[in-house]
């Protein structure tokens, strides 16, 4: 039962940790791109393309965590089954 409890915690917290890093990285990237665009508005298009490619690479890391978390959710038992087991344990 502890195994499933840890699994359930991991699905939520793992994605949260990944999202923290991704958010910090993307914020830094967007801030620098905005600064560059404000200084040189004529090269805004090139900066924007490069920024979007970079954001895609950063975001991919969180997406890996999302996919893993969905795979772990698939391994969790149904709530009814857990309640049934708990009833037997309580007896």
């Amino acid at each position, binding site marked *: 039962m502890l195994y499933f409890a840890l699994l359930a915690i991991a699905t939520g917290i793992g994605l949260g940790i990944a999202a923290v890093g991704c958010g910090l990285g993307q914020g830094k990237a967007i801030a620098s791109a905005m600064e560059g665009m404000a200084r040189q508005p004529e090269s805004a298009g*090139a900066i924007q*393309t490069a920024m*979007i490619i970079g954001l*895609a690479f950063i*975001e991919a890391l969180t*997406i890996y965590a999302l*996919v893993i978390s*969905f795979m772990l959710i698939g391994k969790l038992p149904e709530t009814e089954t857990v309640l049934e087991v708990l009833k037997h344990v309580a007896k």
Partner: protein
Amino acid sequence: MEEHAAAEKAAEKSIELPSFMDLLGIDMHQHIWGLSLHQWLPVIMSVIAALFLCGISIYATRNPKKIPGGLQCFMEMIVETLDKFFRDIMGSATSVFLPFVGSLFLYILLMNMMGLIPLLHSSTNNLNTTLALAIIVFFSTHYVGFSRNGLIGYFKHFLGEPLWLAPLLFPMHIIGELARPLSLSMRLFGNIMGEDTAIAILVGLAVSLFYIPIHFPMLLLALLTSLIQAGIFAILASVYIAGAIGHHEEH
């Protein structure tokens, strides 16, 4: 066989909105050529998307006019915008590769958007679809690099710039090349699946609790995600192709 059944069970357990096949009243568990109808759904949806794109392109260019009107004008606008966009990345190679990356973009965009229409289903929220597209990009990248640069230029590309670092850089380049289709497919699959699952959960919540469409803001976000992910897939494909061609014919 057991693994097959497990995969099928996992596919049914994932949260999805109903598709039009659920309304037809046929048994979704029957097997055709070893796959259940649940597993055929992404294939059917991607074929619908491809047929729609082919049909509308053929219809729009059936008798091209000098002064285009309506549909032909719209299609020309799409092609011109894509051409202008990819010319920044690929340079003079755009005229050869625009049909490939441009149709990748339109096809993925259409497949992503199909998930937002009720009773249709995005086929890109299945890893098999995105992996197939990424493998096409992988092989075409290497074919282009091989045919444009020849055998020596192709391997020189992997060895890196200072030749004495080649023993270190060669394995790194190989791993990097092999990681590209993985990251391309996982990115598209994860984004679209996450978005569709969030919409399905919110629809379930709206039906069971509130009776108001609280998933509506998520649909607007999904429109944006669909466009950006299709764009990123096509941009990365063109960046890989431009990298394989090499820098000697830039600009």
